């Protein structure tokens, strides 16, 4: 026992009466050294996505489940070799979950619980918890009753909760799927009612949804797929190539402490006026852009090549036709908010909400896609920090809004955690000089860092 003791960790019930969980991602691989409470795996249950910390210190010897796999509570998922010298865990009594030599199959629910009765299905089929009740699932694995001849003095056991896993033909009823699976289906555009579930009691699993989405996407050659470039993809490609090769692009970056903006947002959100609208950082950015354009009209202008011997000219626009790059199921489109500079913050928020909803639904009218004078691309929604955006053809500037997130920041000579985001401005150097581009970017940043400055515009 001096070296190489193997400890098995079985999937615990992390949420009062759960019976299974899906392995999302392992944070460790075989051979890795782990310490007690180091996160080893992310799982998703019907209630929550959760990280599991290691109960042992040692070396990962085996991983039993792979990502995407759904595992029953009580099933061993990892073996950790412990027992090297100085290991603080070595002398600890083995926890009741560690069933040495247990088969990696479903274990009785109780054995994972150290004898607790919380979480067990009651005779009424409900599961008692500390915060209320959850409905008992039919798949709880219970200890087997001993068959006994003769009459039992005890009351009859609860009605067997198992329900045959055969196809349930009732397709007009709400299909059986966990909330995360429903969400996935929605994201992938899969209609759950059209699927037969392969899970327990015909429940639709993540795999079912993925499979359906895949088969819908392509007929399938191995390892690659070819998608003809049509419509939107083609238009996007043409616009990007023409822009990138005609307008000489310059991109500048600036990181901003947007904590004051987020605070303002918190305050506004509780007001009656803003309660119903989505007040995202993008709305504030749109407002800041419209204000800052007043000081630097060059970014709201466009370059026109002179035809037939005429001089080229720069067209300055009085109003801001604000394009918002939107990811839609069909691809990238840039619908416009008309006369954005005349709108109040709330009106901008409403316009943005409408624009996004319309774009997502794929019903943006073509007229809304043309005649822009400035574009914002919100790469932050993808969790990305920044990028070098390419101009929308005909426009002279585009602003990329990065992810808004906490970051170390120096305040009054002290390191503090602040809410920070990165801005990137690309501009057409034929129209906009470095000075103007820089001023505009600095103005937008200043407005986000200190929204009170808006009063000075």
């Amino acid at each position, binding site marked *: 026992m001096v070296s190489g003791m193997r400890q098995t960790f079985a999937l615990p019930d992390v949420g009062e009466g759960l019976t299974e969980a899906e392995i999302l991602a392992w944070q460790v691989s075989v051979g890795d050294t782990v310490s007690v409470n180091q996160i080893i795996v992310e799982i998703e249950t019907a209630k929550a996505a959760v990280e599991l910390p290691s109960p042992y210190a040692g070396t990962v010897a085996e991983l039993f489940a792979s990502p995407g796999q759904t595992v029953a509570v009580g099933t061993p998922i990892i073996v950790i070799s412990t027992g090297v010298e100085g290991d603080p865990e070595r002398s600890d009594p083995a926890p009741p979950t560690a069933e040495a030599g247990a088969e990696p199959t479903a274990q009785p629910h109780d054995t994972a619980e150290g004898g607790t009765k919380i979480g067990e299905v009651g005779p009424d089929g409900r599961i008692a918890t500390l*915060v209320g009740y959850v409905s008992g699932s039919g798949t709880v694995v219970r200890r087997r009753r001993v068959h006994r001849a003769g009459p039992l003095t005890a009351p009859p056991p609860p009605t067997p909760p198992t329900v045959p896993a055969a196809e349930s033909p009732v397709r007009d009823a709400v299909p059986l799927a966990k909330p995360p699976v429903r969400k996935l289906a929605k994201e992938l555009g899969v209609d759950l009612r059209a699927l037969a579930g392969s899970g327990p009691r015909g429940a639709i699993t993540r795999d079912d949804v993925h499979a359906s989405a895949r088969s819908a996407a392509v007929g399938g050659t191995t390892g690659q797929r070819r998608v003809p470039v049509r419509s939107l993809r083609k238009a996007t490609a043409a616009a990007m190539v023409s822009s990138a090769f005609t307008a000489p692009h310059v991109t500048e970056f600036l990181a901003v402490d947007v904590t004051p903006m987020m605070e303002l947002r918190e305050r506004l959100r509780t007001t009656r006026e803003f309660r119903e609208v989505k007040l995202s950082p993008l709305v504030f950015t749109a407002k800041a852009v419209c204000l800052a354009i007043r000081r630097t009209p060059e970014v709201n202008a466009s370059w026109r090549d002179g035809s037939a011997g005429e001089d080229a000219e720069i067209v300055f626009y009085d109003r801001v036709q604000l394009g918002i790059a939107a990811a839609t199921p069909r691809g990238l489109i840039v619908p416009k908010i008309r006369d954005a500079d005349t709108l109040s913050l709330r009106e901008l928020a409403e316009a943005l909400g409408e624009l996004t909803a319309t774009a997502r639904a794929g019903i943006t009218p073509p007229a809304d896609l043309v005649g822009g004078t400035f574009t914002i691309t919100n790469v932050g929604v993808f969790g990305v920090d920044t990028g070098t955006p390419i101009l929308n053809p005909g426009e002279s500037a585009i602003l990329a809004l990065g992810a808004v997130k906490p970051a170390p920041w120096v305040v009054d000579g002290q390191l503090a955690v602040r809410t920070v985001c990165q801005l990137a401005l690309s501009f057409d150097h034929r129209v906009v000089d470095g000075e103007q581009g820089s001023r505009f970017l600095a103005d937008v940043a200043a407005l986000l860092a200190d929204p009170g400055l808006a009063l000075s515009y």
Partner: protein
Amino acid sequence: MASFLGFAEPEPTPQQVIAGLRATAEGGEDLVQLLSPEGERVTDSRFEPWVADVDVDRLRALYRDMVLVRRADREANALQRQGQLSIWVPLLGQEAAQIGAGRALMPQDMAFPSYREHGVAWCRGIDPTELLGIFRGTDHGSWDPHATRFHLYTIVIGNQCLNATGYAMGQRFDGRVGDGEGETGEATICFFGDGATSQGDVHEGFVWSAVYDAPVVFFCQNNQWAISEPLERQTRVPLYQRARGYGFLGVRVDGNDVLATLAVTRWALQECRTGNGPVLIEAFTYRMDAHTTSDDPSRYRLAEELELWKLKDPIERVRVNLVRTHGESQEFFDEVAAESDTLAARLRAHCLAMPKPKPERIFSEVYAQSSPLLDAQRDEYLAYHSSFEE
């Protein structure tokens, strides 16, 4: 001037509207604070005298309390994720509210917790290992509520407000209240959440204790969420202002400020001991983790909100104050950190070694005496239990 049932109602001024909004977003103007999030002392002539005795040693002790209960909380949370506890209720973020209130208590005072008050339990001398049984499902609470003057955890929301009011009435009847001397007087403190304020039991406790002057401090930890329900679904006025409608005093304190919470709770308890109870304290704080380990807060609240509250961390501001104002050395912080790791290891070892209780325990530990009906139920249950394999 708007008219309401024929009475002229003045329209709220813009200032009043803004004050109301700030009150639910930031704590508002009436928030009692002695230590800012940046660790600066804030002057407050009303409550400062109540912590005049808190010198650097006592401040260190408060810091240590908070670090230790946070560490124990994190370890218990991990133990749940490792299958060792059925559930855990995290206190993360509420350390100052609980330590401030807990350390304000005198030995003779009585406390009624809900289920998240691990920090108050600590102040009552209950070892964190004692809390594990309830969450592992092996006992119903093992500490002696009389000896520790800390009632067992109450899961039924708001119910303890009735128990506390009743207990406080007993203190009154026993003549422990109103003689003006805090040293001998007694008070009761009752802990509950913002969600609990919507419960009938809390209302009844407020009404009863108000009209009978019961010596009870109602300590509401407004952590902004009742599972997935935000504060705005519980109230349209700042919670501490509700006290006025019942006819007693209400104070809103920065629940992430251990000094202010200590001061305000000491004051409130003394009001009660001298016959001026009840008092409502709203400790304005934030639940930094999930409601329980069964909950996933990312489904209903924004990560930004959490980031905002990280800046108001209750422990960090004391640490900064100790360093800036008292020149505290790194050595002290390292010592406390090491001590907290030792505590966590002890908690873990204890949890893993907890014996599995016999099934009859559920019958033997609820009522003081048995009854024929209970005996019959127990026998039936044991027969049923033994009909399983193993």
